[in-house]
């Protein structure tokens, strides 16, 4: 039987490819077996180690939870006006000042009061200017006849 030389060459190439692939498969399988055995050894060694350190495993979760809440608080808290403390401070004003009404919008406070004398008003403005919680006090409106005065100021968060 006479075989065409090209067909013979193709057949030889196919057989050679299969043989090389088989050899590669054997080598790779051996490497896999070695790697799996090594993994088994490592896993067996890890078991008791995990048992010993398992009690501190929640640390990461606790830390993440804490940091997430802290970040939110730090983002929101600067907008929180110390409203109650500011009101308490305003209640300490001299008796010559009669507080009529207070209006707070976020960090902006307007206090309406009756202050008869200009010098009393200046004293009040000066006192508010030294406050830890209140800043930039200024007269918004003043009726010289009745003494009704609106003083606006900013709250320091």
């Amino acid at each position, binding site marked *: 039987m006479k075989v065409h030389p*090209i067909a013979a*060459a*193709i057949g030889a*190439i*196919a057989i050679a*490819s*299969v043989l*090389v*692939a*088989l050899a*590669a*498969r054997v080598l*790779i*399988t051996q*490497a*896999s077996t070695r*790697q*799996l055995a*090594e*993994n088994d050894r*490592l*896993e067996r*060694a*890890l078991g008791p*180690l*995990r048992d*010993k*350190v398992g*009690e*501190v495993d*929640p*640390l990461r979760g*606790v*830390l993440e*939870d*804490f940091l*997430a*809440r*802290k970040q*939110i*608080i730090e983002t*929101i*808290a600067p*907008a*929180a*006006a*110390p*409203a*109650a*403390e500011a*009101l*308490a401070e305003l*209640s300490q004003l001299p008796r010559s000042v009669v507080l*009529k*009404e*207070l*209006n*707070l*919008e*976020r960090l902006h406070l307007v206090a309406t009061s009756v202050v008869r004398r200009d010098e009393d008003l200046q004293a009040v403005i000066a006192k508010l200017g030294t406050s830890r919680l209140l800043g930039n006090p200024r007269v918004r409106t003043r009726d010289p006849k009745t003494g009704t005065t609106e003083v606006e100021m900013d709250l320091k968060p």
Partner: protein
Amino acid sequence: MKALLRGLELIAALVVSAAVAYLALVADPLDRLEAARERHLALRQQYLDASWKLANLDVLRQQLATMKQRQQAIRKILPDADGLIVGREALEHSIRAALPPRLAPSLELAMGNSVMRDFYAYRPFSMRVSGDFSDIVQFLQRVSSGSERLRIVRQLSMKPRSPGTGVTLVAEVYAFAYLTEDAMAALRKAQSQDDEGKKR
């Protein structure tokens, strides 16, 4: 020309047979070897981490105890949301608990709807209460800046009632709560299901 064609035929045969042999005999074991190596790297990292933890176990125990205390404290300031909302009942309860007894009869509370942001939720509420100035300030301090919980007074007005009967406080306040990972995961799942439903 004929020789060139033969050469091309042989090259094509080589490429095809190599590809078929690779796919049939080599690809699968190679994938398994790669997976085993990746598993080895992961196990090795876990082993190193566990060894490091074992070497520092006492320090880590102390850190965990400290962090748990700090977490408890910060959870009071920014408590967990009730699912994806700031719970109405819990909020009302905490406000009433802050109320001096003398102010209790005059308290009017109105709760707004809970609003969700990326990692937190808040509920606006308004309150109206009348009484002595000092009681009102004390109550406001407990509810807002002096509260263990994070609250923001958005708007406030205080006016005197009839002479000698104290003042009336009207305030709009926000109460905040933390959206846990579980709550956010549930929301994302519900949203993706909703999106899929819309596509269909």
